[in-house]
């Protein structure tokens, strides 16, 4: 990178806000998964004006720019694939306003997801999207990726909770779209921007909805001896119009790894468990918990028990949220997928994954958001074994193709990024992609903003990128 650009960035932001030494840059080569990419410099803006200044400089030097929150993303969204400047939002981490009366908060993009919920807890409120990485991931990142989490089954994903955004466009202009209101006359630009994976504009301020905490919460653990009984229970819960706040599944292999690590109280000799949470008025919670228990028993659940204390409940959730971490203890590396399927297709899909696991002689763990059909198969491998690695790629592709065949999608919450962009043609026609490309160009004409993400580059059509770095796996939660 031109030393002149570094000097100009330092003049703009101060020398402490610019990193360019080789050892500093290494820390920003990876995110929560997928590949590596070496940025040429890292900058830490403190305001939208700083960001605007950086963007103007990047334009002048025709240098790519990539926005980055905590780097917990699972599809390479924050990787500097083409080098350039990585803009880290960690210094823009202030909660600017909490408007409890109107159930809104205004935050900078670097605010950590869980910190917002903690900041509004005393008002009986919370921020609904709850990715497993919520202790670390930022709301700016959530907006870019349209992040979900277990409780999005009831509350929706990030896009359902954003009413306004301040953007820095690729020419450095600062623009506000939406606001605190639930709608603004005009096109739904918020709807376009949320989930655009940092390819349309940089987000410098976000107005989000806050939710009121429910009166009662009940967390149930249903234990099964077969996978089929487990998945059939999920289908039946959906069919009977019971709407839990969360419905998560862990298969036996995964929960044994989790139990050794977290000691959440999962029985180690079962085929799978469902972790189901119901929320609302206490009358509704009791009735729903009773119905769910009945469904699970009808499908031969060996045991259905409710967490008796907050501590028990938290432990069960810790087991779920730290499951990816637990996998790191038993395998040098794993590849997590994020396919979504219609919920009625769960039983056959789990059987298919089992077949694929046998066919390729790979260990595949299943832990996922069963209630909305969002799968997270974890394929374990050792990256030193190249023959095995080839099988991982093939197995991953087969699982993905199955999801598409049954009417599903490539990613439910992790994003396309640079992991799946070459798979986009499996879902979208050339005309679909041409329109998306045109919208991207309308916002990001020179493709300086997060290049090589979301849309296929056309170089390796149909290829999935599998992470090789163990460090990436350690980040993934």
């Amino acid at each position, binding site marked *: 990178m031109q030393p002149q650009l570094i000097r100009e960035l330092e003049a703009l932001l101060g020398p402490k806000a610019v990193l360019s030494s080789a050892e500093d840059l290494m820390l920003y080569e990876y995110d929560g998964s997928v590949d590596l990419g070496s940025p040429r410099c890292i900058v830490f803006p403190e305001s939208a004006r700083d960001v605007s200044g950086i963007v103007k400089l990047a334009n002048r030097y025709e240098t790519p720019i990539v926005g980055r929150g905590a780097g917990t993303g699972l599809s390479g969204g924050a990787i500097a694939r083409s080098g350039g400047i990585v803009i880290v939002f960690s210094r823009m981490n202030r909660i600017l306003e909490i408007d409890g009366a109107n159930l809104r908060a205004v935050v900078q993009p670097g605010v950590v997801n869980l910190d917002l919920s903690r900041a509004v807890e005393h008002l009986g409120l919370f921020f609904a999207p709850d990715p497993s990485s919520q202790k670390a991931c930022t709301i700016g990142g959530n907006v870019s990726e349209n992040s979900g989490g277990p409780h999005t089954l009831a509350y929706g994903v990030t896009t359902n909770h954003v009413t306004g955004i301040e953007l820095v466009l690729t020419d450095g202009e600062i623009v506000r779209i939406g606001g605190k209101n639930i709608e603004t006359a*005009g096109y739904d630009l918020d*709807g376009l921007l949320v989930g655009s994976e940092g390819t349309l504009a940089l987000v410098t301020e976000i107005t989000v909805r806050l939710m009121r905490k429910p009166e009662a919460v009940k967390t149930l653990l249903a234990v099964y001896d077969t996978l089929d009984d487990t998945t059939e229970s999920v289908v039946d819960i959906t069919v009977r119009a019971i709407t839990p706040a969360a419905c998560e599944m862990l298969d036996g292999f995964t929960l044994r790894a989790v139990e050794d690590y977290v000691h959440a109280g999962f029985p180690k000799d079962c085929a799978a468990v469902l972790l189901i949470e119901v929320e609302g008025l206490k009358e509704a919670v009791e009735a729903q918990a009773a119905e769910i228990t009945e469904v699970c028993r009808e499908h031969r659940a060996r045991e259905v028990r409710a967490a008796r204390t907050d501590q028990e409940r938290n432990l069960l959730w810790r087991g779920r949220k730290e499951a990816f971490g637990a996998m790191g203890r038993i395998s040098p590396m794993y590849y997590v997928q994020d396919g979504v399927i219609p919920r009625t297709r769960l039983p056959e899909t789990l059987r298919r994954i089992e077949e694929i696991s046998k066919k390729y002689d790979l260990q595949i763990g299943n832990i996922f*958001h069963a209630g909305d*059909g969002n799968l997270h198969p974890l394929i374990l491998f050792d990256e030193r074994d190249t023959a095995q690695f080839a099988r991982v790629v093939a197995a991953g592709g087969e699982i993905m193709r199955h999801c598409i065949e049954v009417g599903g999608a490539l990613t439910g919450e992790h994003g396309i990024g640079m992991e799946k962009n070459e798979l986009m043609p499996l879902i979208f026609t050339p005309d679909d992609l041409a329109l998306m490309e045109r919208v991207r160009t309308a916002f990001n004409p020179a493709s300086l903003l997060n290049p090589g993400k979301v849309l296929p580059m056309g170089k390796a059509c149909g290829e999935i990128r599998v992470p090789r770095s163990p460090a990436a796996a350690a980040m993934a939660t």
Partner: protein
Amino acid sequence: MSQPTQASFTRLEEMVGGSYVVSDAAEIAAREVCGVRPTVVIRPADAAQIAEIVQFAATEKLAIIPTGGCTKLGIGSPPSRYDIALDLSRLNHLLAYDPKDLTLGVEPGMRIEDLLRTLGEQKQFLPLAVPLSERATIGGIVATNSSSPLRHAYGAVRDFCLGMEFVTGEGAQAKSGGRVVKNVTGYDLHKLLIGSLGTLAVITRVNFRTFPMPQAQKTFIASFSLAEAAFDFCRSVAHSVLTPQLVEVADPSAGQLIFSGEAFARILPGQWSAVITAAGQPAVVDRYAKELGHMAAAASAAEFLPVEDEAHVAMFERIQEFPRLALEAAPGAAIFRLSALPNAMPSLIAKLTAIAKQNHADVATLARVSGILYAVFVAENAGSVASLAAAIPEVFRVCSQPEMQASAMLEWCPKELKTAPEVVWGPTRPDFELMRRVKNSFDPQSVLAPGRFAGGI
């Protein structure tokens, strides 16, 4: 601007079949948009025909407006060109419905009533309780982002629409989103089509998630002599653990339209009414009755009235149809759809009332307390558009005040008032340039509904 020639008619007839290209006076008149009439009405059978028609129109420089039940064609500013009304009534099929997955895919020409009937057989529904529901179609509801009181509990179209297929202004068939309930594969382009008044693309399929019908429902009306008291009551509900299906506040004039019949005799004229519907298991509904009763007493409500069964259904329908009822009562009314923060609503209503008074008009308001407000302005002298013309810019001015942070759109008004896009959409906003870029991406030649949208898009 060019007119369709005889040769164009022949070409269009070849595309869809002669009987589906219509130019008789009644059909043309039914598809008038703000005083502008098309030359021809075309009824395509499918997306492929639509793509062909749009490509042809682009080449011939003809302008197209997609139409459904023609209930909301008056929304938006007058089109700058309008040659072809693309009647989507033949695309009226439910393409996929998986009740066990609670998802469906439907063509735009299907009437919402027909769709709701099919869903009802499975004890499911879509929370689209929109005005003019007898004739309203899915495509029209999506394209106008029609307001439903059930948004309070279920969100708006953007929240439960999973994906769409559509034909762009260049005649390309495209799609975004999908059929599954959680999906971040690619840009959410379909969200842009919601409320776009047909200016970006012709919708050919919409995928929704459906919702299970609640076991029981009951409405409670608390009436107050002051607006503040009614909104305070709603605030106490919002700050409680209750999560009602809808929360609305009707001012005395709106109340007169909504509460008709003996069941509502106890609601006296001049009262502000807070309307709250509870839904769920019977035990839950009973709990609402108890808690809301306490809250109403604490707020010194003049009346607290439970409404159920037929009276509930009738009243719900009148809330749903409020804009239609208002227009029937005063055909020359100007109806604003405003978006405001819950806490700003009482002062916004006070300001709207002052604007009406200054301009020799009356205003009736129905607030969806989570953020949408209908304001119906009626001139005291029924024939006078001048007083409304004077009031309209004042409404936009009040909305832009920093303490209001409100947004407004003039949804219905006499066409004579629509002399410029700003009359309908208010002053151009800073993000307009981005909307223009979006329009250019979808419809670079402005084939689709030119001039109907904000800023003359």
